[in-house]
């Protein structure tokens, strides 16, 4: 046992505490922010600790792996935790200023902490079934966060979102059951060690079982052809928490793809999933950006861009099929995830501020933010240029490393699609800029109260500039994290010990001799 379990316990107890403080809104806001900020400091310390001391493992109840519940903090998990908590804290600061009394009365803050709990849990778990439980906890938090305020549209979109995720959850258990029947374990380290040793029909059946998991994770990451749920559901989420949704929720899917299909199932002869992902990524990028081009609502355009950007990350995972370029491709994906979470969250937060400034959500009705609130316009410009991949911001480097991995792997088709997508991204960002920010303002003055949320957003916008100009240490960290999951020997040794214990004969073996 060590302290890494705190990333789950702190949001859990905060959520319970906040639910009890419903009658004290100011205290609730203060406690909520303090908990987020404290945990953020802890996860940055944890990242440093893991980077210098190696992978940290916590076995619940002291059972030895592969039997007990394992929580594992390696570099990738810590990077994701840092992103989750820092974006979460910025969003908490933002929502402290924007949340309405009605929303707060609907347990806005407790649900947000449940969301943090689920996301952190899915990053730190070392076991497939626990990943399912973490997904469900995260989804409960997201259903609650989506519905605060309870307008008709919100409830209706939440219904679609819940229905889709119920199917996803059922499929997840199917995948877990099949993997358990074939491999006899669900511990990721144990699975990684065992799939390496499998061969023949059993390996082929495991590949078939992993396809079910592939569908579940791509559904969560919103890649082609299962992205349709995202652009309808995200615009109904309240403005502040939308930034966290946009940044983290689809990236939990990308993280699961990295963890399961790069670390656990990526062995010689198991390349099917990564090949499929490479093809899907091309369609995802292109269809996402084409969808964005024909929308006329700011947050809806940005939602389509999430899909398009997920394509770039999945492309990096797809390139990992080739073991020569696998470390570089996975490092590129990790760097892209870091860039994307920061930029996408800040864009959604700026969109919320711009809606507050103009009082409208449709592009053709907005106009003139640059006159009403020049600071907001400059925040948007930096984030939008970074998203489209303009130097010197982080988007340029992130796209550069992904494309270079593609060129090194001689996958020229996908590189071409990625470059075209990048141009189209710039076009649709220009559309938002021209309609919402330029032009004559349609009202005399901005609504008051946009300054404080804009200041919270500025923290993330500064982060994308820092990530772009001082990328070296982040690239080094991404490369180390990629090495750790592409060749998971250190991970397996940290979880299973020096002399791996193997499971005795299991029911699964009797079923599939």
């Amino acid at each position, binding site marked *: 046992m060590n302290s890494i379990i705190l990333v789950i316990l702190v949001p859990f107890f905060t959520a319970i505490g906040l639910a009890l403080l419903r009658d004290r809104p100011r205290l609730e806001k203060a406690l909520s922010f303090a908990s987020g900020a404290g945990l953020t400091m802890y996860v940055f310390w944890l990242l440093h600790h893991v980077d210098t001391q190696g992978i940290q493992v916590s076995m619940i109840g002291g059972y030895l792996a592969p039997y007990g519940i394992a929580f594992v903090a390696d570099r990738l998990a810590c990077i994701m935790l840092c992103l989750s908590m820092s974006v979460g804290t910025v969003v908490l600061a933002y929502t402290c200023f924007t949340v309405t009394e009605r929303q707060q009365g609907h347990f806005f803050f407790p649900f947000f902490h449940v969301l943090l709990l689920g996301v952190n849990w899915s990053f730190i778990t070392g076991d497939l079934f626990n990943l399912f439980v973490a997904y469900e906890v995260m989804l*409960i938090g997201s259903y609650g966060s989506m519905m605060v305020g309870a307008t008709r549209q919100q409830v*209706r979109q939440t219904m679609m979102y819940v229905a889709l995720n*119920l199917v996803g959850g059922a499929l997840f258990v199917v995948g*877990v*059951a*099949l993997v*358990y029947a074939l491999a006899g374990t669900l511990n990721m380290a144990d699975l990684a060690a065992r799939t390496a040793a499998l061969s023949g029909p059993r390996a082929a059946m495991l590949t078939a079982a992993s396809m079910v998991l592939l569908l579940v994770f791509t559904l969560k990451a919103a890649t082609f052809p299962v992205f349709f749920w995202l652009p309808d559901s995200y*615009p109904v989420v309240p403005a502040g928490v939308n930034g966290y949704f946009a940044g983290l929720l689809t990236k939990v899917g990308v993280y699961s793809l990295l963890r399961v299909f790069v670390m656990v199932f990526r062995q010689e002869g198991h390349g099917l999933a990564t090949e499929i992902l490479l093809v899907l990524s091309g369609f995802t990028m292109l269809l996402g950006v084409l969808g964005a081009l024909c929308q006329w609502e700011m947050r809806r355009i940005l939602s389509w861009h999430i899909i398009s950007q997920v394509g770039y990350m999945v492309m990096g995972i797809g390139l990992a099929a080739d073991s020569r370029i696998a470390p570089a491709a996975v490092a590129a994906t990790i760097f892209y995830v870091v860039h994307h979470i920061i930029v996408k969250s800040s864009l959604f937060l700026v969109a919320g501020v711009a809606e507050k400034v103009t009082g409208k959500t449709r592009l053709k009705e907005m106009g003139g933010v640059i006159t009403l609130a020049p600071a907001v316009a400059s925040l948007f410009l930096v984030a939008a240029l970074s998203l489209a991949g303009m130097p010197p911001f982080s988007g340029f480097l992130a796209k550069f490393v992904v494309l270079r991995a593609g060129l090194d792997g001689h996958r020229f088709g996908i590189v071409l699609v990625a470059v075209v997508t990048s141009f189209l991204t710039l076009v649709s960002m220009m559309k938002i800029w021209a309609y919402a920010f330029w032009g004559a303002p349609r009202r005399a003055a901005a609504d008051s109260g946009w300054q404080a949320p804009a200041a919270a957003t500025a923290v993330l916008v500064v982060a994308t500039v820092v990530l772009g100009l001082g990328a070296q240490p982040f690239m080094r960290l991404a490369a180390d994290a990629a090495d750790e999951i592409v060749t998971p020997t250190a991970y397996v040794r940290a979880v299973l010990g020096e002399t791996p214990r193997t499971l005795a004969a299991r*029911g699964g073996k009797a*079923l599939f001799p």
Partner: protein
Amino acid sequence: MELPLAVAIGLLFAGGIYSILRPNLIRMVIGFGLLSNAVNLLMIVCGGFSLRNAAPFVSDPNAVAGLMDPIPPDIVLTAIVISFAVGALFLIICYVVYRDYGTDNPEELPIPVADDETFTPRRRPRRLTYED
């Protein structure tokens, strides 16, 4: 025991998927109930379900043949709790949609944003009160 269970799982999956695809909110909720039971049964079968009546704690590793693996039932228990909680939530959401839009057919719901704001239900359902 695998064959009858496999047939049951297949029927549950078929019934669940058919119900989810029906244009009716209540059938969707019932469909998810069937689907989650299908999945739970599948998990039980994957643990090597057997009728041999003994606990899987033996000192001789060769004596475990035919005993049921204890981990899948644990997993199923967790999955049941989760599907129950989310199913209850889903039922309430479906009810609120019915109350707000006056229809239990998802195909009659307006297209999001385009005509959602101007949509008025054809008939307002009577609100349930505590006396009902």
